[in-house]
């Protein structure tokens, strides 16, 4: 398992250094700096030198690094690094050099708690915050008052939830966030289109609520005879695969596809899912790009919104690559703003608000400077970024969220949908 854990800033200065095993010395920190941080051409997130392996993840301006001397479980090491970043965010709002330096004693405290002998332990922020806090005094008090409650919580079967949560108004918010990935060939064929969805939940519920959650999942609806009609109407969605937060009872899902759980308090990712069937593309892009001789490239790019006119997309950004030797660009757009950004070798076309069924066009040309060596332009794909509210590319819908608690309170539930661009690329 993990023998040492380091956090570096961009310059390679060590901000946190914690050794968990005697098989390494502090000096390995220098080896990582020399071999990875100072190396401009690092081609793997794992570097093994002799029998020492360095795993690194970059976050903000930091290198999060775990070092092992054994044949460690690589997925576990990286998941731990990601988790540490999330814990940092939960504690400090943002995990960057400033936050780490300003709270280094707390970071050490957390590291002592979440890793024991290099084995990740309970890393649920909700529990950690019970006894490790930004104010030393508060932790001190928590410890004296009721430490056995903390220990039960930290080792219990629902380690993600405190037992004594109370809200005057019981509410739960569900956000269905879909990232749509598209790869379109130059000929206009869809090479791949898939949706990876995330269901985020913010639960402000008292006590120990048992929740049941239902989607228009085809497999589930087909099982349930009373909804047969609905499934036939093809409003049901075929989910390729899904993964759940650890609070969800996986055995139950495996046997009858019901999603039941005791939620953590506050915000968490309830599930992730993937669909590839019947994906609705929110935008269609038709690029016509011609290289005219050696000195000019002509662009005509049309983009059409493929969703209901009642809806609209926000922050639409279309990035149209230009050749490396572009000297000057002239573009005309009917809506939004387009400008050439030399640093990115692209025309960035921004449309703040884009109504459904609407179509926009960009036309223009790039003047190229002469080059001594004629090298073919690699034509990176056009990429898009956007957010469409109250729209899911997969057609997924939340059917119900039921909350059962022994005090039998009523709770209010809210659902919101959003589709955003994952990697939305169109070759030309």
């Amino acid at each position: 398992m993990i023998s040492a854990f380091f956090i570096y800033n961009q310059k390679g200065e060590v901000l946190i250094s914690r050794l968990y095993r005697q098989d390494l010395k502090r000096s390995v920190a220098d080896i990582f700096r020399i071999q990875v941080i100072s190396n401009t051409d690092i081609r793997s997130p794992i570097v093994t030198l002799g029998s020492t392996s360095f795993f690194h993840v970059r976050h903000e301006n930091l290198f999060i690094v775990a070092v092992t001397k054994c044949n460690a479980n690589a997925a576990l090491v990286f998941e731990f690094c990601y988790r540490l970043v999330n814990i940092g965010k939960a504690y400090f709002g943002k995990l960057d050099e400033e936050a780490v330096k300003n709270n280094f004693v707390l970071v050490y405290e957390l590291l002592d708690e979440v890793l024991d002998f290099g084995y990740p332990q309970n890393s649920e922020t909700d529990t950690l915050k019970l006894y490790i806090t930004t104010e030393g005094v508060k932790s001190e008090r928590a410890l004296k008052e009721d430490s056995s409650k903390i220990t039960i919580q930290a080792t219990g079967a629902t380690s993600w939830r405190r037992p004594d949560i109370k809200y005057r108004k019981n509410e739960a918010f569900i956000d269905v966030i879909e990232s749509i990935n598209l790869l379109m060939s130059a000929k206009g064929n869809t090479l791949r289109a898939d949706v990876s969805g995330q269901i985020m939940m913010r639960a402000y519920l008292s006590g120990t609520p048992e929740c049941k959650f239902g989607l228009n999942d085809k497999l589930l609806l087909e099982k349930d005879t009373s909804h047969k009609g609905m499934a036939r109407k093809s409003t049901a969605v075929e989910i390729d695969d899904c993964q759940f937060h650890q609070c969800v009872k996986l055995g139950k899902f495996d046997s009858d596809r019901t999603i039941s759980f005791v939620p953590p308090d506050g915000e968490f990712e309830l599930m992730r899912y993937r669909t590839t069937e019947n994906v609705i593309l929110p935008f269609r892009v038709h690029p016509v790009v011609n290289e005219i001789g050696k000195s000019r490239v002509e662009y005509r790019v049309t983009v059409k919104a493929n969703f209901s006119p009642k809806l609209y997309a926000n922050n639409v950004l279309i990035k149209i690559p230009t050749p490396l030797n572009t000297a000057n660009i002239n573009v005309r757009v009917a809506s939004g703003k387009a400008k050439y950004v030399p640093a990115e070798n692209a025309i960035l076309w921004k449309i703040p608000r884009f109504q459904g069924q609407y179509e926009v066009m960009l036309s223009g040309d790039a003047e190229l400077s002469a080059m001594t060596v004629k090298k073919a332009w690699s034509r990176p794909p056009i990429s898009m970024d956007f957010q469409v509210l109250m729209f899911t590319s997969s057609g997924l819908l939340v059917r119900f969220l039921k909350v059962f608690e022994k005090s039998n309170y009523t709770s209010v539930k809210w659902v919101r949908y959003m589709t955003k661009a994952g990697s939305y690329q169109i070759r030309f």
Partner: protein
Amino acid sequence: MVIAVQSSVNFKMSDAKYFQRGKIHELRTELNSEKKDKQHTKKKTVLKKIVANMTMGNDMSALFPDVINCMQIPVLEIKKMVYLYFINYSRTKPDIAVMAIPTFMKDADDHNPLIRALAIRTMGYINVDKIIDALVDPLRRCLRDKDPYVRKTSAMAVAKLYMHDHELVECEGFVDLLRDMLADPNPTVVANAVAALTEISERSNTITLKLNTTVANKLAAALNECTEWGQTYILEALMSYIPQDMGDAEVLAERIAPRLQHANSSVVLTAAKVIMYLMNYMTKEEDITNLCRKLSPPLVTLLSNGHEVQYVALRNILLIIQRRPEVLRNDIKVFFCKYNDPIYVKLAKLEIMFRLASVSNVDQVLSELKEYATEVDVDFVRKSVRSIGRLAVKIESTADRCIAALLELIQTKVNYVVQEAIVVIKDIFRKYPNQYESIIGTLCENLDNLDEPEAKAAMIWIIGQYADRIENSDVLLDDFLFTFLEEPVEVQLSLLTATVKLFIKRPTAGQELIPKVLKWATEDVDNPDLRDRGYIYWRLLSTDPATAKTVVLSDKPRISTESDNMEPALLDELLLHISSLSSIYHKSPQTFIPNSKIRHLTHSPVLNRRYPGQQQQQPNLLDSDIENLASGSLGIEANPYNLDVVNIGENYVGDLLLDL
């Protein structure tokens, strides 16, 4: 509508200022200051400075006695800093470290479970004989503590102790205590005990973790209650279970399968490892097929994780589909590279794409590869070009289109693309003799730019092989021969053979070249292979030219992409290490971690013997080349010529495997 509320956090502390070099004597004075410090805030500040300096790598060990004095201060934050200091420096000052024992003892007996656990946890980190000895009694007590948090911490402390002094752990019966903890009512305690036992078993020559069916099923049942990490430890431990009766493996796999839906990728991959392992002990093909069907979607989902986890997943998928080709057979699209994937993800995807390529999807694969061949990263482009060639060798019906694609790429005149294309075209010529020779003309246009040995050797091979069809083959060879003595051996060998072929096919054209090449090879070069080969040719040609002809121009063995398959024994071993480093490097752990235990499929009455590694060993190319040599056919084949193709993708990690 929900309105997102981003909680903003104010930084109450700004401890960044402590990150500056402190002088030992100043820190000491501050620490020992007699000034009033009721809240111990001054002590806290000095300790923070010391910890910051420690972090920066400045040696603070001289302050040991002064820091130890702070141990008594009843402020938790201070205690934690002192303990941290201790873990770092106690080994350098064992005699002073002993002074801390009484405080540790007191803490290990504290009424507060968190303090008890903290003491046990910290003592476990300290490798000082006397402290280790002192730990034994409280540890034994804490292993049976009424508080689960203390028990789970103690379980881990046994593993720590084992690393310091394994005899002590064995003598004191701690391993038995750990084993008893597998029946603990608390899931976290069970998980840590399992992790500790697995660790000990990995390091010990005498202790090996073995689970019987009852324990294995109990552990699998405990999975539901564990934290995600605990689930990983338990799943890992299940690799020490050997099914003995019909149905054992099936039942356990059934219990584990729901884990594939977990959000944590280490749970998913470790579950996949156990399931792949258990399949070896299953009898019904139907059960295996069902499980394979369950494996595919979660493996694809792993690709929506961070890039690092994607990389781990991809390298493992490559192993899994070699053993169970039905997994992911229809999912090739998800492995298409995104333009902004990091290079390590792209290279890993490329290999999987090649492997999943079949008659039904080859068009898509080829058009993807053509796209990649125009990208920017040199390594990626080269491997894409090479994959196009391999595709032609793998799937006959696509060879025409692959050749066309390669020719198109050669037209781009991008140097490394051309060279890579020539290398693979040589393979295609070998696989499909007498079909594509018409393109030789195009190849010959690019001779001047070849500067890589492999490409040169390939081009020379082509010239030699088709010496009678290329009009000016003698002139071309002569051009290459100009620098014979400066060339690397690879090129020299192929020049030698090509010249001999030329001489045999067109004696008049070759007669001027052959004597000087043979003379160089036998007299002016130090390499024994080259010299030997030179002599053999010389003698063959001088004693019996007719035999020389049959030997040199004999039929070559067919090539296929079968040679890309991993050796079954190694694949078997790597599958037992799914998700680990070795599964990423595709190297047995012994090759980079000394003293690591070898894993193998243990025999049992239900072990399925269809896939054992040793039985269906593929003749690898090196062997066949040696046979080839023995039978007298001396072409360029005497080079282990396909080795590089076999290695695609793994050399960039391999390069980094140097010793410290």
